[in-house]
C-alpha cells in the first residue's frame, strides 16, 4: 500500500513492534479484497468510529454459536468486507501445535476466509477473522473433516482454556491440559448450543500463579494448589545462596505471612506450613529448591467476570480444595449442579456472580451441596442481617399473647 493512501495506518507500520497493519497488507497482497479492510480501518482512524454494524446472526448447521456475524456500514465503498464474520475455532489445550496442524488451518482459511487470524482470542480460541455467509458452512465442514471444531459464543459454555501446566511447567499441581480437554469434550452440547441465561467460562491454571487469568476471566476457575508441606531441597537452597540470591530479602521478607525462617549460617530454610497460604512466591524465586507438596488438587473459584452489569468480579473461593483425578467426576458433578441452579434461578443475561449475589451465598452453597468454610470468605459479614430456616428454630411464641396476659393480670 502507498503511504499516501492510508497515511494514518501507515504510521503504524513504523517502530520495532510487529505491526498488525503489515499483517493486513501482507494478506491484501494475496487477497485483494483485504484492501477494503485497510480502507475501512483508515476511515475509522480518521472518523474515530467503528464502521461495523451491530451483530447479525449467522451460524453453521446444528450449532447456535461459534460464529460472530459482522456487516459493514461501508459495504458500498468496501465491498470486500461487506460481510466479515468471525469463526471461533477451539484451540488445542495449552495452545500447543504441530506446524502440520497450523498449516492445515491456514490452508482452509486461505480457501474460505480472509486469511487473517487472531492467535488467539481472549477466551482462547483460534480466531479466523472475516468471511462471508456462504463460506461459513463449507469452511466448517472442512475444519471438522480435519479434526477441528468450533468454540463457544452466545449464552453457552465458552471454550475452556488452560495454562501450559504439566506440559512445560514444574509448578503444575494439576493436569491442566487434561482437565481442559475433558471438560471441553464432555460438554460439547453445552458449548455449541446456547441454552443458558448467559455465557459460562471455565479456565484452568496449574497453580496460584494463574498464568491463564482464570480468576478474573472465568465463571468457574480451577486453580491447582496443595495441602501438605512445601518440599525443600536444602542443597539447592545453599546453591542459590552461594550463587548470590538474597534469600532473606527476596524470599523471606516477601512471604505474605512471614512463615519462612532462613538460617544465614547454615543457609537453610524452614517453613511453618501451618501459616503458609500457598502463594507460590518462595517457590517461584527458588524453583530448584522448593516445590509444592504432594497432596495436590485444586481450589475452585467461581464468578469471575468483566464489569458489565454489576461491576467486575474476581472469582470467589467456593471449594477450597478438591482432588483432581480423571475422569474428574466430582468436578463435573459440581459444574452440573451449578448449571442446574443457574438454569433454574438465573435471569436473562445474568452471570453466575450476579446470580450468587442476588440469591445469596447460603442458597447457592446449599443448592450445589458445598459446605460453608471460612476459606470461602475474606471476612465474615459486618451486618447481623441473616436468615434462619424453620429447622433452626424452636416453636414460635407470640409476644402479643405474653403481653396481653400480663396486661390483664391482677
Amino acid at each position: 500500500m502507498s503511504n499516501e493512501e492510508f497515511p494514518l495506518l501507515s504510521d503504524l507500520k513504523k517502530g520495532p513492534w510487529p505491526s498488525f497493519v503489515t499483517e493486513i497488507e501482507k494478506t491484501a497482497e494475496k487477497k485483494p479484497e483485504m484492501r477494503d479492510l485497510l480502507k475501512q480501518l483508515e476511515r475509522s482512524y480518521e472518523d474515530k468510529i467503528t464502521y461495523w454494524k451491530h451483530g447479525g446472526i449467522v451460524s453453521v448447521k446444528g450449532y447456535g454459536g461459534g460464529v460472530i456475524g459482522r456487516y459493514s456500514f461501508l459495504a458500498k465503498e468496501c465491498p470486500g468486507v461487506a460481510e466479515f464474520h468471525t469463526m471461533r475455532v477451539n484451540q488445542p489445550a495449552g495452545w500447543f501445535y504441530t506446524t502440520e496442524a497450523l498449516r492445515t488451518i491456514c490452508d482452509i482459511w486461505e480457501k474460505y476466509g480472509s486469511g487473517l487470524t487472531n492467535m488467539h482470542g481472549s477466551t482462547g480460541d483460534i480466531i479466523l477473522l472475516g468471511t462471508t455467509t456462504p463460506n461459513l458452512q463449507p469452511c466448517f465442514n472442512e475444519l471438522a473433516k480435519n479434526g477441528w471444531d468450533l468454540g463457544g459464543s452466545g449464552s453457552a459454555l465458552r471454550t475452556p482454556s488452560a495454562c501450559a501446566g504439566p506440559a512445560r511447567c514444574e509448578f503444575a499441581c494439576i493436569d491442566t491440559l487434561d482437565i481442559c480437554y475433558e471438560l471441553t469434550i464432555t460438554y460439547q452440547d453445552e458449548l455449541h448450543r446456547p441454552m443458558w441465561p448467559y455465557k459460562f467460562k471455565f479456565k484452568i491454571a496449574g497453580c496460584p500463579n494463574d498464568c491463564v487469568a482464570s480468576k478474573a476471566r472465568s465463571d468457574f476457575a480451577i486453580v491447582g494448589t496443595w495441602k501438605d508441606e512445601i518440599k525443600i531441597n536444602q542443597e539447592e537452597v545453599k546453591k542459590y545462596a552461594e550463587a548470590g540470591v538474597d534469600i532473606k530479602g527476596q524470599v523471606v521478607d516477601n512471604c505474605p505471612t512471614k512463615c519462612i525462617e532462613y538460617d544465614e549460617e547454615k543457609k537453610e530454610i524452614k517453613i511453618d506450613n501451618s501459616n503458609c497460604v500457598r502463594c507460590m512466591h518462595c517457590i517461584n524465586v527458588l524453583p530448584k529448591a522448593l516445590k509444592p507438596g504432594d497432596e495436590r488438587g485444586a481450589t475452585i473459584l467461581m464468578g469471575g467476570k468483566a464489569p458489565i452489569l454489576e461491576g467486575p468480579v474476581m472469582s470467589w473461593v467456593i471449594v477450597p480444595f478438591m482432588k483432581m483425578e480423571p475422569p474428574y467426576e466430582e468436578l463435573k458433578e459440581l459444574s452440573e449442579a451449578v448449571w442446574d441452579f443457574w438454569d433454574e434461578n438465573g435471569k436473562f443475561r445474568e452471570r453466575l456472580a450476579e446470580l450468587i449475589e442476588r440469591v445469596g451465598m447460603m442458597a447457592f452453597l446449599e443448592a450445589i451441596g458445598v459446605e460453608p468454610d471460612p476459606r470461602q470468605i475474606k471476612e465474615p459479614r459486618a451486618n447481623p442481617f441473616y436468615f434462619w430456616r424453620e429447622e433452626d428454630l424452636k416453636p414460635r411464641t407470640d409476644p402479643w399473647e405474653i403481653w396481653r396476659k400480663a396486661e390483664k393480670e391482677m
Partner: protein
Amino acid sequence: MASEPFEEEYISDIGPPHYEKMLPPVIKKNYGKWAYHEVVKPGVLVHVAESGDKLYTVRVGSPRLLSIYTIRELCDIADKYCDGYLRFTSRNNVEFLLTDESKIDALIEEVEKIGFPVGGTWDATKAKYGLSNIVHTQGWIHCHTPAIDASGPVKALMDALFDHFKNMDLPGLCRISLACCLNMCGAVHASDISLVGIHRTPPSVDDDVVRRTCELPSTVASCPTGALRPDMKNKTIKVDESKCMYCGNCYTMCPGMPLFDPENGGVAILAGGKLSDARSPARLSKVVVPYLPNNPPRWPEVVDTIKAILETWAAEAKPHERIGEWIDRIGWEKFFEKTGIEFRVQLIDDFRQPRHTFRATTQFRW
C-alpha cells in the same frame, strides 16, 4: 453429552484435537515431571526435567493479528529448528520449543529477521522482569461496540515500551491489557496497567431502528442504572441522560442506541490489578485516569500516561513488587503525587454500594 448429529455424515461436536497430538516428544516423555526452569537470557527459557532432559523455549512477540502467510513463515522456522513444534502463550506470544541448545541463536536471528522480536520473559530468581505482550481485543477491525481501536494503541504502546520487552529491566511483573469497550474482553479489570475504551455521552436513540430491531422490555431492563424508560406510544425508548453512565449495555441489547461520539469517547486508564496470588492476593484494577482523548494513530496521551506510571513504578519499586503492591506500600495519595496524575472526582466510586472504597481511617500521608 454430545447430541445427535444432524445427518449421517455431518461431522460435529468432535471438540478440539487432543492436546497430546500437539506435544513434542520431549514433553510427552517428561509430562508432569519438570524439575525446574531457568531463564537463559531474555526471551529464552530452559525447562529441565527430572530425567535431565532439557526443553528450550524461545518466546517471540506477536501482534496477535496474524496473516496465514506469517503463520506459515513461523511454521517454516519451527520446522527448521523445532522439529515442527511451537505454541502460543496466554498473552498471544509465540513460543518455539526445541531441545537443541545450539540452534537457539540461529532461530532468534531468523525470527527477528522477519520482524518478530524475542523477549517478554522474566526471571523471578534474579528479580528481573521483562514486559510481555499486551492482551487486547478487536477494536475497529471487527467489533461493533468499540470506543477506541485495539491493535493501534497496542502497537503504539509496544513501540514505546519495546526496550522493556527485550531487556528484563523491570523490578516486577507488569501486565498491560487493553479492551476497546466496557465489555472488557480480556483481563483489563485485573492488570497492572490497562486501558479501556469508554463512551462519555448517552446513547443516540434512533426511534426507527429501535422499532425495527429491538425488544423494548429486555432493553429497558438491561440498564444497570435504570436510565431507560419504554415509550409505549412511540414504541421506542427514552433515556434519562442524568442517570446514564455510558456503559453501553443497552447498545449490546439494541442496535438502535449506539453511544458513539468521536470527539467525546476516549480512554480510561486503570492500574494496580494482578492475577497471580504470589505474595499478595489477586485484585481488581482501579481506574486512575477517567478519560484521555481518542487520538489515532498513536494515542500519545495514552502512551505518555502509561509510560509515566510504568517508569515511576519501575524506578521506585522493590524487587518483585508489582504496581498494586507498590501502591499498597506508598499509598494512593503518593501514587498520584509521584506519577503526576491528577486525582479527579470520577475516580471516587459511586456505583452500587461503594462504601468499601471510601477511606474510613485517618491514616494517610502528606
